[in-house]
């Protein structure tokens, strides 16, 4: 059980390519931390730096306050599940799991009991005599997991372990991994590019972009208080809808003016934008915060373009100012493509972002 600290950690691959840039991060004991970001943002690099497979260009890595930046991987007390599983094809499942234990000078009986216990935990106890090429992808994944669990590491690293599984198994494994974490309480850094995976599993999410941390926070934080346009657009399925609007002062009122609608702000939001000096901004609204209403108090009206039924919900896509806007509504009354919809926004769910920097305005 341990905490992990990254201080000013950088990895530069070449003059122009940074894997990770000046990263500061601290992972608490027993925490399940998820690194989330699009492909190529430096998640794997971060994990490999922690594991010691990649040499840091600058900065330090500390486990329990001990600097391990220059320690070889085998002495770091970490274990890792690779995206490709990386189970050794010339060893049986048993030998794969026992590999690390044999270097620890444990007795045969001890090794045997640990292997049996971990194989049990990930439900592959009936497969230990097989070779990896006699296993399915999901089973290999479990072998990789068992191998990593068996050493009882201080830090548990996982690099997109679920991305090669089929959709159904992926969801099952999410739950199972969380359950295993409940049981082992190992400090975990979990990498994924799948925001829904991150949302459903993380204690805290670290969102990365281009080798830099953009936001750190609980799943609710990153969802409801996205720190900038990138996060708001990355988190949520379908993602946040963005509009570029002009701010117009009409007497004491503030109105957001868009070619298709004019939105008069309530007092709370008015005070938030009162001192904002620029004449336009980006505002965002999540699909579930656009509501279908009656004709008389509508903000804008538009015909539905595409309707995707999702069981009790439906995702409706429509075109506003040549941009696709998506909204989610309950299936109480089913909408069909071509239906005219009267829409309004939930005032308390509006997100404002600076038009140039994309940073969030106000902290509500």
């Amino acid at each position, binding site marked *: 059980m341990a905490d992990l600290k990254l201080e000013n950690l950088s990895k530069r691959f070449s003059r122009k390519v940074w894997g990770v840039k000046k990263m500061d991060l601290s992972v608490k004991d027993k925490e399940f931390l998820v690194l989330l970001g699009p492909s190529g943002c430096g998640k794997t690099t971060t994990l490999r730096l922690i*594991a*010691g*497979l990649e040499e840091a260009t600058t900065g330090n890595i500390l486990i329990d306050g001990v600097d391990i930046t220059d320690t*070889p*991987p*085998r002495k770091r007390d*970490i*274990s*890792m599940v*690779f995206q*490709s599983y*990386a*189970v*050794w*094809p*010339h060893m049986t499942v048993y030998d794969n799991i026992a*590999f*690390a234990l*044999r*270097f*620890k000078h444990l007795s045969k009986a001890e090794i045997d009991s640990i292997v049996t216990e971990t194989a049990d935990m990930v439900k592959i106890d009936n497969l230990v005599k097989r*070779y990896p*090429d006699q296993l399915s992808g999901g089973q290999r994944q479990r072998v990789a997991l068992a*191998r990593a669990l068996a*050493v009882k590491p201080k830090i548990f690293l996982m690099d997109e372990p679920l991305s090669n599984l089929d959709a159904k198994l992926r969801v099952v494994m999410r739950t199972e991994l969380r359950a295993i974490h409940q049981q082992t309480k190992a400090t975990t850094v979990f990498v994924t590019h799948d925001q829904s995976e991150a949302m459903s599993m993380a204690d805290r999410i670290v969102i990365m972009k281009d080798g830099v941390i953009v936001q750190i926070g609980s799943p609710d934080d990153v969802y409801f208080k996205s720190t900038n346009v990138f996060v708001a657009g990355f988190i949520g399925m379908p993602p946040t809808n963005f509009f570029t609007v002009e701010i117009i002062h009409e007497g004491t009122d503030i109105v957001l003016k868009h070619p298709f609608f004019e939105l008069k702000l309530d007092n709370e939001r008015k005070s938030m934008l009162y001192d904002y000096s620029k004449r336009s901004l980006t505002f965002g609204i999540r699909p579930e915060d656009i509501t279908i209403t009656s004709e008389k108090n509508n903000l804008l009206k538009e015909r539905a373009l595409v309707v995707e039924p999702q069981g009790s919900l439906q995702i409706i896509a429509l075109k506003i100012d040549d941009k696709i806007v998506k909204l989610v509504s309950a299936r109480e009354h089913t909408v069909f493509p071509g239906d005219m919809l009267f829409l309004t926004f939930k005032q308390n769910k509006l997100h404002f972002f600076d038009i140039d920097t994309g940073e969030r305005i106000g902290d509500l």
Partner: protein
Amino acid sequence: MKKELQRNLVRTARTTTLYILVAGVAMVILFPIYFLVTMSLMSDFEMYNEWPLPMLPSFSMSFKLQNSQKGYLLSIYNKVDNTYLDMLDTNDTGYIINFVKRKTNCTLTREKLNEIIEELKNNSKVEFKLRKNFLLNYTLFFRLKKDAWPAFLRSIYTAVVTILISLSIGGMGGYAFSRYFFKGKNFLKLGVLFVRMFPAVATAIPAAIILGNMGLYDKPIGLAFIYSIGSIGLTIWITASIFLSIPVELEEAAQIFGTSKAGAFWHVTLPLALPGLAACAMYAFIGSWNEYAQAIILTQFNPTFPVVVFEYVLGATGMAHLATAGGMTLAIPAVIFYLFIRRYILRMWGGVRV
């Protein structure tokens, strides 16, 4: 029902044709080898007096001895023509014994001959059968060519050293090519192949001078160095592609789970690369074991076995059965090596998949 029968017939016809084709190809490949093996077990008589050449060497020979004006007339049974051929008319019994051995690879003891001569006093002819000494050609070859056995040992030594050098250096090179990026990598990679463009005989002359300067001329170790140069290139290419096919993550996982970089290579990469390394060993072995063009130039008093066999084949008019025995002796270690290494090479195509 009829259609099914028809389909079955077509299928049978197709497989039969395929088998005939495969068998035909196998025959073409195997026939020279078959003749080499059988001829090496035949005696001079079988080789030169029985025509067409028998398909199988015989285990025993039949003789007939008669009284003649000179003394005794020895005839040998020709199993192709089903007749006795008169071979020798002499009264020198020592010569008869010698002749039987040389001509038929059978041992006629003096006691046996005396017995037969005794019998001849009452009969006009005596027929007798002698067991053939099956491997006599081989012992004879080594006895006639005094330098064959030392040359054989030298060849084994050379081959082993060649394998060790080309596998260790070539393997390391292949690993470097597959795992690291460095300047001029592609240039180097093509370079090692470029070396092979030059005929071995041509490069042997400068090689002789270099070895002479190093004091390694006419020594097996020097020869092994030269052979290694050729096989290192190929080894680099084969092992590089083998190592490339082994994901780096497998090594990295080993590093995380308790071992060093070298340990990861030893525990993970090496076992997985074994089939490829075995194939390389095979190439290196054959390249060294069967080579004589360079060996002729690079050795003088200490030739390798192929050189000895080559010289013998060239000089052995009317001794084809001994020459084939020499040729077989050249082939046998290669075959043994092949049998030994076979299971590793097979793993490359079946078994463990990376």
